[in-house]
């Protein structure tokens, strides 16, 4: 088994190396958030946490970020959470509803609808950003949560994923439910939804992070600082002149921007692994 052990050691070596390479920038952000601006600006940056952690985080939460960006870090986190949740939940609702219609109902132009949704996969947000912006202006949704969330909740990807999942549900299950007296709504609520939970969890994670990290759209559709997301605020905190930028606070904000998505991944992962083990079609 010597060869086997060597192979395993090598495998571990490469995996650990890979993990370090991926994790290092994030670690560095954290390290930088515990040093003063002076230390950060005088290379090389230390590899170990500094003494300023409490001061930096204290300042960030007690108005330091607000002084630079014009809005408190709490407001930023709140905005971003609201938008990310809105986008994730909105996408799940819309894509599940459309996938349900496409898979379980027969209606005229059913396949045309499917292909229409499918084609939008090929148009990235950036391509249709001008017309979308115009629509938002006409609807008076600039600088509102609606304007931030609504244009982003249509999702061909999620619709497609739900469609593929729904198609694996055996016809007999639907028929058994029909004979048992379940109408379309009850079938969805009592049978399809519980069976979809693991998929919902996975898509929620992906879409929450998608929403959390949105940059271009929030930048366009918001003017007031009050409506900023944390990612936009980060950008606004960085001045062109390096020395004018409070790097310690930028780094604190970065850490705060990273934490919620990590939290969501970790929490949901445990949950959908449990789901994967428990459900069986």
């Amino acid at each position, binding site marked *: 088994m010597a060869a086997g052990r060597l192979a395993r050691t090598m495998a571990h070596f490469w995996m650990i190396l890979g993990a370090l390479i991926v994790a290092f920038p994030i670690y560095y952000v954290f390290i930088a958030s515990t040093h003063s601006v002076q230390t950060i600006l005088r290379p090389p940056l230390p590899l170990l946490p500094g003494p300023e952690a409490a001061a930096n985080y204290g300042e960030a939460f007690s108005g330091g970020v607000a002084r630079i960006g014009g809005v408190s870090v709490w407001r930023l986190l709140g905005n971003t959470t609201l938008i990310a949740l809105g986008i994730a939940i909105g996408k799940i609702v819309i894509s599940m509803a459309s996938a349900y219609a496409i898979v379980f109902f027969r209606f005229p132009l059913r396949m045309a609808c499917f292909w229409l949704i499918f084609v939008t996969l090929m148009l990235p947000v950036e391509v249709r950003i001008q017309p979308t912006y115009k629509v938002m202006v006409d609807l008076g949704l600039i600088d509102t949560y609606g304007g931030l969330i609504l244009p982003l909740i249509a999702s061909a990807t999620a619709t497609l994923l739900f469609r593929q999942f729904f198609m694996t549900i055996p016809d007999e299950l639907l028929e*058994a*439910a029909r*004979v*048992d*007296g*379940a*109408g379309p709504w009850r079938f969805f609520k009592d*049978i399809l939804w519980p*069976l979809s939970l693991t998929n919902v969890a996975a898509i929620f994670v992906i879409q929450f992070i998608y929403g959390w990290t949105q940059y271009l759209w929030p930048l366009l559709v918001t003017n007031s600082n009050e409506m900023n997301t944390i990612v936009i605020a980060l950008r606004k905190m960085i001045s062109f002149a390096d020395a004018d930028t409070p790097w310690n606070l930028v780094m604190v904000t970065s850490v705060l921007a990273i934490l919620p998505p990590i939290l969501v991944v970790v929490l949901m992962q445990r949950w959908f692994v449990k789901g994967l083990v428990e*459900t069986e079609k």
Partner: protein
Amino acid sequence: MARIRLQDVRKSYAGQEVIHGITIDIANGEFVVIVGPSGCGKSTLLRMVAGLEEITSGTVTIGDRVVNTLEPRERDVAMVFQNYALYPHMSVRQNMAYGLKIARLPKAEIDQRVARAAEILELQPYLDRKPRALSGGQRQRVAMGRALVREPAAFLLDEPLSNLDAKLRVQMRLQIRDLHLRTGQTTLYVTHDQVEAMTLADRLIVMEKGVAQQIATPHEVYSAPATEVVAGFIGSPAMNIFDARGEAGSILLPGGHRVTIAPRSVSGAVRLGLRPEDVEIRTAPGNTVPIVLRSVEWLGADAFGYGVIENSDTPVTLRLTGSTRAARGDRLHAALPADRLHFFSPRDGRRVPA
């Protein structure tokens, strides 16, 4: 409980007719089995009664209501599917109670019905398990239980035993028969297995290519098959059927052999049918047909001889006794009892009276 009437029920897919007009009046409490080879339309017919397939023309009546356009839930039927179709995320109890819950029955009533079904089907120890923790036979019983608790006008079963192994199938077959005797539920049962069909049915619908070849009791279907198709399908091993020529009280067989069949009489070309178990083996010739054996299958109590009529290629299957010493190459004298012969028209395969 209710009677079910089908009146010239037809089904077409894209202009192609697959069920060609089935008419049957099923009495209250009757157990009717639809049997036929795969693709004969038997499941389609059942699903039309259930409301899972649209009825192209004709009427289906359950109780006093024409149900043609009613949703399955409005037809008051319960169905057992081939792969059981249990809800994977619900416990056995929830699976059985689901239909009742939708019907908004009082909780106490639901509990009582589930408990009773569980007792009949011996499912009490499994009520809180999920379907994946059950064996095939247990799942099958849960599917039965789900239908049972509904106390519907009719039970519809679509090949309920075909996913079980042979031993369990026999067991469940007896249990279904027993259940029907206890509940007296009007039942429509689809199978391709003729043993299931013969043992369970009060009446059979033998289907082939979307046509009801014969609707009759198992005994009638066996002893007087209405068509050559039915004759070939029911009975194991299958009935010997070959071309023959009737001539005033006698019949000319392949190979030039002539046997008298008086007092019966047919004339002209016919298809002659004779079950392997009806052939009598004689020790000496005399109004017999010589059969040359090609192989013998010994099964213990029985043995089956496979041979040909001498001087022809016409294959014949014979049932021999378990104590037979017959072997490949032997020449047997087969007598054809006149009252056991079946005659079919070579044109349309219908039974010819003789």
